[in-house]
């Protein structure tokens, strides 16, 4: 059997065109999904510049969770729609994303956490997300391996899901390329100059000018903005994760402990994949090194929750950067004072699950067809104005 020639799924290495209508800095899930959503609606001249390879940043390093259990109505509704897009992604893009809708089980130890989660659940239910507060007996029925007695209760939504992150990037990249987007990898931007009617971007592979630029560089976005003299309030934070040897499928939901930030799910390959909150000093450095301290903390956390897992072997650990903001919400829209320079960053380590829906509304916004309340709620100026609304469900 001879397979048909494969579709191009990766970026290109080559000289840049001199001009573009719109340049997206950052070839992660946000940048690629935005490029696709623009091109599929007829936008010409979209160029994506990625400093490394596709999936090299946080989009290729996350746990692949898709959940609707959020604490603000906007995030809940956005994630409902994002999950719907993800459900059709394999069909629409022709690539398997290994999506598995096994639910999310959030375990809690304190009455204080429970009070907050009860408020979240009421809000989620008003949005038609079928989350329920369940007791430890029911949690144990869902996951018999759980040492459930140490917990007070759990929050369970059966319609949350996990995916394999990498094919999302290739799916968006391939479809965007087929719609005329040029994706240049290994093309770091080293300077940005604001000119009368456009921005001139200098890269390792030549210069490109465009009237509109979108900064979708994730944890690197403050550095990209700084090239222009624009200071952004988001900062990078290392989050570590590990993967075990593959096991027979046994764990249906993503299991997470709210107080420790531990999360673990079983991928469709059978591996357990998970992380835990490690408290670190705030820094502007992007640190991607792996530490033994993480393996210790994660192993203790996992074995405490599911004692049987002590015998399971860790195969690999790695790290990725969260892109944090002080109120737990992203930064989007045109930067005040910088006409044509747009921001799409600060997604708090949860941008992967948000990207399919955010990119859709971002494309409609840029095309002038429709604007979404997120452009008001998540505007950069809210920090200076003190008009923030905190999101409480940031995990990991």
């Amino acid at each position: 059997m001879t397979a048909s020639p494969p579709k191009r799924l990766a970026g290109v290495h080559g000289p840049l065109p001199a001009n573009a209508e719109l340049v997206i800095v950052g070839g992660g899930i946000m940048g690629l999904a935005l490029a696709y959503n623009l091109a599929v609606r007829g936008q010409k001249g979209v160029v994506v510049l990625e400093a490394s390879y596709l999936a090299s940043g946080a989009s290729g390093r996350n746990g692949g969770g898709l959940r609707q259990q959020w604490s603000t109505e906007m995030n809940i509704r956005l994630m409902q729609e994002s999950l719907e897009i993800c459900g059709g992604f394999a069909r629409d893009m022709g690539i398997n994303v290994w999506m598995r809708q096994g639910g999310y089980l959030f375990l809690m130890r304190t009455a204080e956490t429970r009070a907050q989660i009860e408020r979240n659940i009421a809000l989620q239910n008003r949005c038609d997300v079928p989350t329920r507060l369940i007791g430890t007996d029911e949690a144990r029925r869902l996951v018999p391996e759980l040492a459930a007695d140490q917990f007070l209760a759990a929050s369970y939504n059966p319609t949350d899901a996990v995916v394999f992150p990498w094919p999302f990037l290739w799916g968006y990249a391939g479809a965007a390329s087929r719609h005329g987007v040029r994706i240049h990898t290994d093309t770091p931007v080293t300077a940005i100059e604001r000119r009368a009617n456009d921005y001139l971007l200098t890269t390792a592979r030549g210069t490109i000018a465009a009237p509109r630029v979108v900064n979708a560089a994730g944890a690197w976005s403050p550095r990209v903005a700084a090239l222009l003299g624009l200071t952004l309030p988001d900062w990078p934070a290392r989050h570590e994760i590990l993967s075990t040897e593959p096991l027979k499928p046994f764990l249906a939901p993503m299991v997470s402990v709210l107080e420790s930030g531990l999360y673990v799910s079983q991928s469709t390959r059978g591996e357990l994949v998970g992380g835990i909150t490690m408290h670190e000093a705030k820094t502007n450095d992007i640190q991607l090194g792996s530490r033994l301290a993480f393996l210790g903390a994660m192993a203790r956390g996992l074995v405490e929750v599911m004692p049987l897992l002590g015998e399971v072997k860790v195969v690999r650990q790695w790290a990725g950067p969260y892109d944090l903001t002080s109120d737990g919400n992203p930064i989007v829209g045109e930067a005040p004072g910088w006409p044509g320079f747009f921001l799409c960053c600060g997604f708090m380590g949860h941008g992967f699950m948000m990207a399919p829906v955010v990119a859709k509304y971002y494309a409609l916004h840029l095309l002038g067809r429709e604007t979404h309340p997120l452009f008001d709620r998540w505007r950069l100026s809210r920090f200076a104005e003190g008009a923030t609304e905190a999101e409480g469900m940031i995990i990991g």
Partner: protein
Amino acid sequence: MPRKLILCRCEDVTADDVAHAVAAGFQSLEEVKRYTGFGTGPCQGKECLVPVALAVARASGTPVTALRPFTARAPLSPTALKQFAALEEESERG
């Protein structure tokens, strides 16, 4: 090279899979690792990195010496969670 020749035994990645990845535009070993899954099993590339690098070089026309190995990941060999769980928190600093 026989197309069904297995280059990564942990993840059953064949010479044909590697050629397919290169044809889809993946150029570096980091990218080919992510697309094919080679090097993500119990050996973590200790057996398969060189044979896959040679296959990528052959498929892409890149000299093998121009290819960089992917980032090695700890632990050195698969290790039980209980052994990490038994570590003293104090000895983990740094």
